[in-house]
């Protein structure tokens, strides 16, 4: 994370420039498909106070999306962390599962959608798509965190007569924890980015992804952009909260990056 706080002037310069450029371009193009800053801000305000065409307000959309993402994310943690620990400890399991996991990792959640529509229904659709996005960052970070445990620290533990289980509990997992946590942070971010894909097929009329899709059908670009900005801001806030938690939790580490 670049520390902007020291130079608030410079920090605000770039966003300001982007806004100016946006506004200038929008005036030059002069099209209803290219809304200006003011229009989008107005749409955001409308969404917050009056709600969308169905009267669902912005924070309700955000809350629903958030709960879905947290559901999928929790599922991803519950599956990826134990599996990652196991695969990090046992080279054999890792090697065996690699030919299956590696190709699957590169199939984008969007490509899964037809299958998900056919096979799953209701809340499971959200869960699956978001789980898919969050799973791999968590799994891979957990594996590398476990594998990166210093052999010396493991020997220290052994030299005191600790068994395998005790060593894993007292040395391997604590030493991998920062990496697991940063995997969780990245996973949550990726899960959040899958929200539009998940809500494309979720069926319900509420959710930030749904909001965007709804207005894209109506060709209301200003509303679409308002929804996009909300997704971006909520994602940023989640990341910031987790980053701070990590810094507090892992005070013993010199730095937590990204």
């Amino acid at each position, binding site marked *: 994370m670049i520390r902007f706080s020291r130079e608030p002037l410079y920090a605000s310069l770039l966003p300001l420039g982007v806004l100016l450029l946006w506004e200038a371009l929008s005036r030059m193009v002069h099209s209803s498909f290219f809304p200006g800053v003011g229009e989008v801000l107005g749409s955001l305000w409308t969404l917050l106070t009056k709600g969308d065409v169905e009267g669902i307000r912005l924070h309700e959309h955000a809350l629903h999306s958030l709960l879905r993402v947290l559901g999928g994310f929790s599922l991803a943690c519950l599956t990826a962390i134990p599996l990652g620990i196991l695969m990090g400890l046992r080279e054999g399991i890792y090697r065996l599962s690699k030919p299956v996991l590696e190709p699957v990792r590169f199939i984008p959640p969007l490509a899964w959608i037809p299958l998900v529509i056919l096979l799953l229904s209701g809340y499971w659709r959200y869960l699956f798509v978001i789980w898919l996005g969050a799973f791999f960052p968590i799994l891979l970070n957990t594996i590398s965190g476990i594998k990166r445990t210093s052999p010396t620290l493991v*020997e*220290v533990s052994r*030299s005191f*007569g600790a068994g395998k289980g005790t060593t894993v509990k007292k040395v391997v997992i604590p030493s991998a924890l920062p990496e697991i946590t940063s995997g969780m942070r990245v996973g949550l971010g990726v899960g959040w980015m899958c929200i539009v894909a998940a809500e494309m097929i979720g069926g319900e009329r509420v959710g930030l992804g749904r909001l965007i899709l709804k207005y894209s059908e109506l060709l209301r670009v200003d509303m679409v952009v308002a929804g996009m900005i909300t997704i971006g801001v909520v994602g940023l806030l989640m990341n910031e909260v987790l980053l701070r938690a990590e810094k507090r939790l892992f005070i*013993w580490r*010199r730095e937590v990056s990204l």
Partner: protein
Amino acid sequence: MKVEDLHKHFLTREGRLEVLKGVSFEVREGEFVSVVGPSGCGKTTLLRLVGGLDSPSSGRITIDGKSPDPSLHRLGFVFQEDSLFPWRTVWENVRFGREVRGMEGEREVGELLERMGLRGFERCYPHQLSGGMKQRVAIARALAVDPDLLLMDEPFANLDAQTRWILHQDLTRIWEEVRKTILFVTHNVEEAVYLSDRVLVFTVRPARVKRVLRVGLPRPRDKLSAGLVKLRKEVVELLREEVPYL
């Protein structure tokens, strides 16, 4: 502790690598014994075998008549490199072995920290400590389990000369207080003769015990005293026979 005709080889891509070839010696209870030898001669391997972290190809090691087993014997290992748990404070690091062994009592930990000159650092994390302080914590952690045998693998190799000097004095003082059996591996001749009751000089790989020297000087010792300097010279000459350019 007794080592009898110890052999150890490793299988590498290039073939069989013989590291120890018939090493025999004995360490009495409460004795401070150093092992010096050319770099890469297998000193660390020996320590790992004695500590039960690895098993010999042939030969026997016995501690109080039994093969070394970390869950049976109380061993304290001090490593050359950074070996503290970075997520544990100084206090929690020193407690580690006691936790593993299910030993109660916080008082002993406090006393040990006091003795090692670590008072006031209890809540520090390892990254906040200097190299010398870290090794003090590592020594305290090893001593905290009240070990039958303390195994030290070049614990001061990464420290600057001054810090090392101070730690030599402190280790001597502490050893006189607690009278633990210590097997100390180093390539620093000065250190070996200053600290030990006896010095084992190893040959190049595959290593054997080349000579055993008894130091026999009263403590506290002076590093520049004629007796110690003479012994240093003797050890260096023995090592020169192994490594001519030394």
